């Protein structure tokens, strides 16, 4: 009996780490492919061309007074020839709208709404007199997905870029995403890039001036997590064509594909993943050739929570969003009709992302129980600990190596040292903390919880709100 449980937990851990190693290899392959096929030589031509497809950046904002001004400034500074920015204020109770009015000299205008997706009522539409590319919409509260739908109804460009208001875009991030679309012959309908933490970065005039590892330990652990998630998990999935999520913080979409799919669903807290899965499902069902791609270039910096309470709420919400997306599209699970999505991507997310916290918690409970009862196998326990700690650490180290080869985000020995230290220490406390938040998310999902939970923004270093 003891042996069976021991072996089950170890097998799960081995499977998890094994899949991570496979993804690491796939990611290295994918990144080498991307490095060969990216064309910085054509940047200038794309930037100067009148025919480069216009893009609308849609930025939903709800109580974002700490970051909104820097974020909008950053969006306006993006290097792209034909750009419009729509900020959708989702009934903020703080000074988000006032700050936008003050800093960008907003004046009311009316715009004809082509309402192809149902959304909450718009109170007013304003345009900046400083930069006419900026439109601000004030609307009744309906959540982030509803705000994005309003933006989709208002925008008139073939491409839309959905960006969080607590994010700063890199200057050429949008250009790199668009280049993937225009130089592709595989009907790419959506592209995502690597998101990095803005904590520790110095922002001036909406631009990242300098980036180091965050000073806050909670943010440092998240920096390790983000790097692992984007640089090898998502790039690995990209190789298999089974990326189930494009981050809500920054994603470029062909507008018609999103509108045809019905826009963002407002009854989920994981609207980014839900939309990506729905786009996959719709395209596969219709038998249309398509691609949803992820590129390794850093396209955007986002602010990570630096307090335990906010981090817990965020992870709680992510887990609920994950559950909702997977449950809603459960017909895809192990369904060969959906190709690699149904046979690899979906099962992976169910087994390791959705059920992972539950199995891990059971593992802790089992270990505690066998120790108390004196039936624990110490050799086994030691092996388990080595695999859990050392394997995970080595994977983080190899991710850092990938980063150093391709994107070179953390340069300098101090940053690297802090990265490695955080990668080692995350197993002792941080992992358990996020585990509990994710478990709580699942429990609250079954209790019928639908809210987002309050997020507190600190603002970017050097940024003036």
């Amino acid at each position: 009996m003891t042996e069976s449980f021991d072996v089950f937990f170890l097998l799960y851990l081995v499977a998890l780490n094994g899949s991570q190693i496979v993804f690491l290899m796939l990611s290295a392959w994918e990144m080498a492919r991307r490095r060969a096929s990216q064309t910085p030589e054509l940047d200038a031509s794309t930037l100067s061309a009148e025919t480069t497809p216009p893009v609308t950046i849609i930025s939903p904002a709800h109580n974002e007074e700490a970051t909104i001004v820097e974020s909008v400034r950053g969006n306006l500074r993006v290097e792209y020839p034909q750009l419009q920015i729509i900020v959708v204020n989702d009934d903020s109770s703080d000074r988000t709208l006032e700050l936008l009015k003050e800093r960008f000299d907003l004046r009311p205008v009316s715009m004809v709404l082509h309402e192809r997706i149902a959304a909450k009522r718009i109170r007013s539409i304003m345009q900046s007199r400083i930069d006419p590319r900026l439109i601000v919409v004030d609307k009744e509260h309906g959540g982030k997905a509803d705000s994005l739908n309003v933006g989709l109804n208002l925008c008139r460009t073939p491409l839309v870029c959905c960006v969080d208001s607590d994010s700063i875009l890199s200057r050429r991030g949008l250009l790199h995403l668009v280049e993937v679309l225009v130089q592709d012959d595989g009907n790419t309908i959506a592209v995502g890039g690597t998101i990095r933490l803005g904590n520790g970065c110095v922002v001036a005039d909406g631009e990242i001036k300098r980036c180091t590892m965050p000073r806050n330990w909670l943010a440092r652990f998240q920096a390790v997590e983000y790097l692992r998630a984007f640089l090898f998990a998502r790039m690995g999935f990209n190789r298999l064509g089974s990326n189930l999520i494009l981050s809500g913080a920054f994603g470029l979409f062909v507008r018609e594909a999103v509108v045809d799919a019905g826009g963002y669903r407002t009854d989920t807290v994981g609207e980014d993943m839900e939309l990506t899965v729905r786009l996959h499902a719709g395209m596969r069902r219709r038998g249309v050739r398509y691609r949803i791609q992820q590129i390794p270039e850093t396209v955007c910096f986002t602010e990570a929570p630096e307090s335990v309470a906010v981090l817990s709420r965020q992870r709680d919400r992510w887990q609920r969003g994950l559950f909702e997306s997977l449950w809603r599209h459960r017909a895809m699970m192990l369904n060969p009709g959906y190709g690699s999505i149904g046979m690899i991507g979906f099962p992976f997310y169910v087994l390791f992302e959705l059920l992972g916290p539950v199995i891990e918690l059971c593992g802790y409970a089992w270990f505690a129980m066998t120790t108390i009862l004196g039936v624990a196998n110490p050799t086994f326990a030691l092996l388990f600990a080595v695999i859990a700690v050392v394997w995970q650490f080595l994977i983080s180290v190899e991710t850092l190596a990938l980063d150093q080869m391709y994107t070179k985000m953390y340069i300098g020995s101090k940053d690297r040292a802090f990265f490695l230290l955080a990668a080692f220490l995350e197993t002792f406390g941080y992992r358990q903390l996020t585990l509990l938040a994710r478990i709580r998310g699942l429990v609250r999902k079954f209790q019928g919880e639908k809210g987002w939970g309050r997020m507190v923004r600190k603002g970017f270093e050097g940024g003036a709100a």
Partner: protein
Amino acid sequence: MSAISGFFGSLWHSGGAYRAVLVLVAVEGVLMALCACWLSFTAILMRRDRKLDAAFARKAAPGLLAVLADEKALRAWQARAGRFPKAVLRRYLEPRIMATTGNLNARIVDVYSRLGLLAKDMQQAESRAWRTRMKAMRRLVFVAGPQQAELLVRRSRDLHAIGVLAAMALGRVGTPRQVFEVLRHIELPRRLMAQPVHAMLDAMDQERLAKLMDLWSETPSPTVRRVLLEVAARRVPWVCERYLPLAAGNSSVEVRIGAARSCGMLAGVSSMKVALRLAIDEVPQVRAQAARALGRRGGSGSVDALAGLAEDRDFWVRQNAVAALREQGDAGRRALEELSVSSRDDFARDAARQELEQLLLFTETGEAAS
């Protein structure tokens, strides 16, 4: 060592299931070690490259710009540079080629060629490995000359990304017939894919573009014909005017859209007639583009036509028409005011009001600024 073997030995003898898991752990360990070896190996290579680059920058690179005009000094520089691997020379010269234009660019490209790098690129462009071909083509975009045009034509039928690069380079150095050979095989199932074709045609000089237009009607893809027409309207308008009536009467919607867009870039009377004809086309996309074109051209004839289009049954036609009216000065403003008050079409009234507000907003801004 004996402690480790004792550790694994005790687990190995604990039961069959433990044994199986141990094997898996060992396999995983090997895979991870392989990853680490590969990453270390790559890191060592990168470090070596960085050192070589630094050495080149220190010993050979200084003075290139100074010696470009002096043949003897240039040869001496070449001799110094030739001691370094070709990859180092490439990494040094590439950004300089990309960052320069005109005579200076031609001289650096000449140095690139003298060092044997161009020949190597041509060789690599025929490689069986797509990554090698792709990398070579990325360089050829900037360094290829007319002598490489045939190679570029061949490569334009390679993988899409390589084909895009080859086409871009060919636009710069190819003959009209060679460019046509590429255009003949291009399919553009999506509008978004048209941008590289635009870029390729934009790279052609006026003379070659005008000659290419002689082959316009032989281009099989309607989308490519549309793009060609638009580029010609911008770059060689006198040639484009000749093809407009033909394009406006074409059965393909894409070609008619191209004709409508082109009208907005031309100034002749005949193109105005074509624009007015396309404003009553049966396809809304064509009318929407005609509205834009009329807006760009301006004039009283345009304002009347745009006021009519503002009441069109299609959303985008109305939007383009009212936006175009906003650009027409007083006449456009009067037309918008009339539409906002007396139009029987609710949508047209709303759209006109919206444009009037925008007009007011930016008139105020202009006044404030002055």
